[in-house]
């Protein structure tokens, strides 16, 4: 039962763009087992002056924040696994569309943007139907990638 909240976007490759960090919030409810998890993403950018190819991604889970580095093309699942973030069991099927443990909820803004270029296919939708706290803006983290312009795709 965690809720992944707020994924936020990122721009990192372009020299002209300031670095923006992606923030993924996991709201973790520890005392209510029947509550389920979702990832809610909404944009909140932090900028700094130094553009970098690798962005920090913050995963906020309730009052906890986990930070990982992301490369372009990484999926959210990659970011969590590569950084060994303490979300055990996230991505149990390793991105093969056979479970929904990497469920994330995007903000409408991000969902709509991703949906244009990379809409969820039937297999992903079938898996999402098993996700606790399914929302209209739900996706699987294994299918959402850090895009060239620094957005999650």
């Amino acid at each position, binding site marked *: 039962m965690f809720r992944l909240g707020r994924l936020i976007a990122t721009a990192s490759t372009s020299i002209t763009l300031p670095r923006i960090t992606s923030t993924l919030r996991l709201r973790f409810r520890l005392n209510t087992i029947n509550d389920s998890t979702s990832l809610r993403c909404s944009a909140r950018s932090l900028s700094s002056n130094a553009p970098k190819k690798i962005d920090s991604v913050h995963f906020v889970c309730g009052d906890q924040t986990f930070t990982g580095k992301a490369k372009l093309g990484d999926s959210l699942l990659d970011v969590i696994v590569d950084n060994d973030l303490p979300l*055990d069991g996230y991505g149990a099927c390793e991105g093969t569309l056979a*479970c929904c*443990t990497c469920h994330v909820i995007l903000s409408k803004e991000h969902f709509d943007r991703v949906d244009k270029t990379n809409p969820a296919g039937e297999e992903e939708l079938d898996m999402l139907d098993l996700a606790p706290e399914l929302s209209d803006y739900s996706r699987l983290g294994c299918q959402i990638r850090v895009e060239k312009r620094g957005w999650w795709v």
Partner: protein
Amino acid sequence: MFCRVVATSSRYLTLSSARNAPRVAVVGSGPAGLFTCATLLRRVPSCVIDVFDAAPVPFGLVRYGVAPDHQEVKNCIHGFEKIFNDHPNQANLFCNVNIGRDVKLQELFDNYDAVLLAYGAHRPRRLKIPGYDAKNVISGSDFVSWYNGVPDTQAPKLDGKNAVIIGNGNVALDCARMISSSDNLQTTDIPKEPLEILSKSQLSKITIAGRRGPQNVSFTIKELREQFKVSTWSSFVSLRDSELEDLQKALASGDRRKKRLFQVMLDNLASPAKTRQTKECNFVFNHVPVSVEKNNENFVQSVRFNDQIAQKEVSYPCDLLIYSIGYENIILDGLPVNENGSLKLLDECRVDVSSAAVFACGWCSHGPRGVIVDTQQQSVAVAQRIAEILPSNLETKPGVSSLLESRGIRYISWKEWCSIDEEERRAGHEMGKIREKILHFEPILSRK
């Protein structure tokens, strides 16, 4: 069989006893137990965990429940392996140890700072209608165990033409898919004995019968869709007018999940286009099983149903009857039971035992429902609860390894499982498949 628990190697235990670390016993090495271990080791980096399983090998239903054509689901094993490989002095596996018989629960309570029950749940609810003791009448759970290579399971006969499957959950779908698509299993981890029987199956008609209406099914959409995609069989849904109406009504008012699920059923209604293959898998509803008719050799011959729509009894020819109509709880001796016959919990996971910190996770805590994501999420929450109560800087509890030694309990450790795993993979590789499961562990258990 899933309630059996495992024991471990004393060598590890001795090592870990050297520190002042909290010690946790986990009963069951399936997803509920091991997801919890993973999170617990994060939260309490010093803790020592002894995982017990009654089966000779770990991973519970991931090995013995997940269908062989769903290998991707089994990828979660990689995470489980990490627990033991990354914490060789802290995470200990004791397979082939039956908690209750080999080690008493009270002994776990006495020798650990916390005990997590994650032994799964259940034995299948028996179909108790006249004639249910006919030969070739088998529970879905036993059928699943058989094709997944659980030791000591009995093979069904697939040499007749007609199979009837009673039940409208995923076990029913898994059974139907194994019967109808054995061609796809050659490279999976299905053992060669069941594969041979499935590939020689003469079954050409499967009837999946639900007691209630089409709007009450417990299928998940991926599994339902898979049956309709089996290209060598015609699979279709047979609805009478009133059933169709019920389903359409339910679709209109249902949430997104229900809508998508019901739409798959509506897209696959019986029609000439859907019945082109000679082999057929037919879904029927509102059929309440009444009796099993046997032939003079005591084999099932037909199944009678009360058709709730036509309001009459109907008979289906049947050479293999599989029923999957729910489960009964198994409560280990010494655990509190509530008025429903389930494990008595104080909240979502704390078991009502005053003398010890006992928690439950997974199907043994709430019954056999939910998929891996549900178990994974519950595990994270339960691990946090356990972490909160674990004492710090106390004297380290001894665990039960010396008990196991003194009783001569032959357990299988993580290290030994690794060599079994390697052997299975090697044997599988030679046969062009992922692994060839070992079905008989006596030779291994008699070594040492």
